[in-house]
């Protein structure tokens, strides 16, 4: 792997803090700020610990960074941010952004985002990104000064391109379908997983009622009392065990969520390609029509119907001088157009080449990460089964003593 920032610098999002402040319209608001700590790695190998630099950032600043990266590197599958609002929640989880568990998971997600960017061969070299990590004040102004917002394509333009492009690269069309499918299947999976978690929670917690009743019942029993009482205790343990189990599963859900959002990033690259391709096709079309116009004027033949042609027929033709002038203008435009088309073609080819390289990199990363996540899911299930076996073995022993 190339020498990326992640290898030179240790990056963590170590803390989250509630803050109050005044927003753009001078109204009081509460938000969470996250502490980013960085430390140079090299000096550690010499046995010395480098000093830690730190600064605070809030979620909106992360969003600004990501928007900048998406616009500046449209051929890169830019890592996604963790979700803005809690989604796919099952009943016990809060949908409140201020909920400590949500904040904690977001902190981890933000750290993951920074590490992804820092390990990307292209993105890690970006100066704005580096400043985001190291320069607390004036960063926002710095980003805005790049003028990246002007480079951003309008959504409408992009949508238009999607429907009207005639010859998109087949690979991008396939990739677009894949990213749609990935988005749809992962969100379905996350929704059902949340429902499964809800139900599993119910099964475990109802067993907790056994504990209470067994205890009350044991009070009136002589021989059965002890067995009942201790069995009840194990039922309480069983009911309580689900909390940790489901918390661990939330991390698995977060791993899947990252790729749900990655699908959107993939889609963005495809959209950029469509836009560029559409632009190219429009430029080529424009050039062709200009050449045609030129030819018509030069030869005097009208091949295509045009209002101008009709009016000139009706109201008399132009003077040779007028015609000459027009031809000259057109010839200049055609020259410009051909140059532009050439550079657009070049741009397009470069885009496809570099985009495809990053997509291949992304595919490998995705396969690796998702496989790991699925395996960790299996490990979690195994752990849950082992806990269940433990509890019920103990309970069985208590029941035998009844």
């Amino acid at each position, binding site marked *: 792997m190339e020498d990326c920032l992640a290898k030179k610098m240790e990056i963590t999002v170590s803390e989250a803090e509630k803050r109050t402040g005044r927003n753009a319209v001078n109204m009081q608001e509460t938000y969470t700020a996250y502490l980013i700590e960085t430390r140079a790695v090299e000096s550690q190998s010499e046995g010395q610990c480098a000093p830690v630099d730190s600064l605070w950032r809030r979620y909106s600043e992360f969003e600004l960074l990501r928007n900048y990266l998406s616009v500046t590197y449209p051929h890169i599958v830019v890592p996604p941010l963790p979700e803005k609002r809690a989604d796919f929640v099952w009943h016990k989880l809060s949908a409140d952004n201020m909920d400590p568990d949500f904040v904690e998971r977001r902190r981890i997600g933000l750290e993951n985002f920074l590490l992804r960017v820092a390990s990307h061969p292209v993105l890690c070299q970006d100066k704005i990104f580096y400043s985001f990590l190291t320069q607390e004040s004036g960063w926002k102004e710095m980003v805005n000064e790049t003028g990246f917002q002007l480079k951003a394509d309008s959504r409408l333009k992009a949508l238009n391109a999607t429907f009207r492009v005639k010859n998109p690269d087949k690979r991008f069309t396939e990739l677009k379908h894949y990213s749609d499918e990935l988005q749809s*299947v992962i969100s379905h999976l996350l929704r059902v997983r949340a429902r499964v978690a809800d*139900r599993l929670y119910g099964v475990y917690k109802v067993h907790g*009622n056994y504990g209470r009743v067994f205890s009350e019942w044991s009070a009136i029993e002589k021989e*059965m009392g002890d067995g009942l009482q201790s069995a009840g205790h194990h039922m309480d343990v069983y009911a309580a065990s689900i909390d940790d189990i489901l918390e661990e599963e939330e991390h698995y859900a977060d791993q899947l969520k990252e790729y749900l959002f990655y699908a959107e990033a993939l889609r963005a690259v495809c959209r950029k390609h469509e836009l560029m391709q559409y632009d190219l096709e429009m430029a080529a079309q424009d050039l062709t029509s200009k050449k045609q116009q030129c030819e018509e004027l030069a030869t005097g033949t009208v091949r295509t119907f045009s209002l101008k042609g009709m009016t000139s027929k009706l109201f008399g033709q132009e003077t040779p001088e007028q015609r000459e002038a027009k031809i000259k203008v057109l010839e200049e435009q055609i020259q410009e157009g051909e140059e532009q088309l050439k550079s657009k073609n070049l741009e397009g080819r470069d885009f496809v080449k570099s985009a495809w390289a990053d997509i291949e990199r992304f595919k490998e990363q995705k396969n690796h990460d998702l496989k790991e996540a699925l395996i960790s899911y299996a490990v979690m*299930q195994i752990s849950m089964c*082992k806990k269940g*076996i433990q509890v019920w073995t103990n309970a*069985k022993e208590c*029941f035998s003593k009844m």
Partner: protein
Amino acid sequence: DTSLAEVNSFSPSMPISPSSMINQYKFEDEPELRDLFITVDDPESHITAIETFITYRVVTKTSRGEFDSSEYEVRRRYQDFLWLKSKLEEAHPTLIIPPLPEKFIMKGMVERFSDEFIETRRKALHKFLNRIADHPTLTFNEDFKIFLTAQAWELSSHKKQGPSLLSRMGQTVRAVASSVRGGVKNRPEMFTEINDYMETFSQKINVLDKIAHRIYKEEKEYLNEMKEYGPIHTLWSASEEDIADCLKGVASCIDKCCKATEKRMAGLSENLLPILHEYVLYSEILMGVLKRRDQIQGELDSRVDALANKKTEKDLFSEEIGKLEDKVECANNALKADWDRWKQNMQCDMRSTFINVAENNLRYYEECLATWESFLASQTVDLHVEEDSEDRP
């Protein structure tokens, strides 16, 4: 198998094996002396102009001398079982008559005459008859014998004999009378203790019944969600290459866990739920028995009170009082013995039922564990294979 309850001469217990219905109740004293075997099966629907009803086949095999034959096969309907129960209650007011399944299930989830309802009822009726057969006194009851052996027309004509309407009303009359007479003030301490115990027991068993049903319901909902969860992974695998096998593996594991969950639920509904329900019914029955004992006591007490002032006629009524005193002593002794027996059986039933619940859950978790472990093993094998192939030039 050391997990079975210890076999002792007082109340040995048989393991509950799902395959054999015969083993689903406890033997009294020495199991080798068992001489009456009853099965209830083969429900059949009968449609007449007036009504539709179900009959069950009752097969009896016996070596007892009082029975003319060694094998009997008769058909009985629910009404007949109700008749038998009321005759037994009449003949033995202070014995604990086993519970009958209810007339209707009000929970609304099971329709009358659905296969599930009929099967649940059949099992309960089978248990009812076998518990009577196991009871040291009830097993020799004449009406019980007629129930097991008489042909349909014989049973009808026998039912019509005897103190029919009055005896059926006797329960109600006595119940009303008892609220007038009481019979509580001279109640022996022992029965007050039993009463207090039964009040608490009744409360707890009702709550347990509700908890068990709730668990069943939650497991069912969990199963439904899991059934949707697995196939999503298969769907996903269709758009992937590298991770397709992994995804399919997860889908297959979830599917196997679903089957294990179904088994766990079946275990609950075949074992825990029926037993808890029976003991809910038993607690009602026991409260009834205690009341009847109080009534009998009450009869004696009120007679004694009434005659307390008539000093001269005491001799005339001493015989009557004597008879009532005997009646009370009999009732008390019968109840005491039956209570001890019931308590022992209850303990046995509860122990084996809950052991069964634990074993059920253990089986479930062990099956799921094996599934996921074998999946994990297959995945790490793949990883090693990949790594090896990368090393090769």
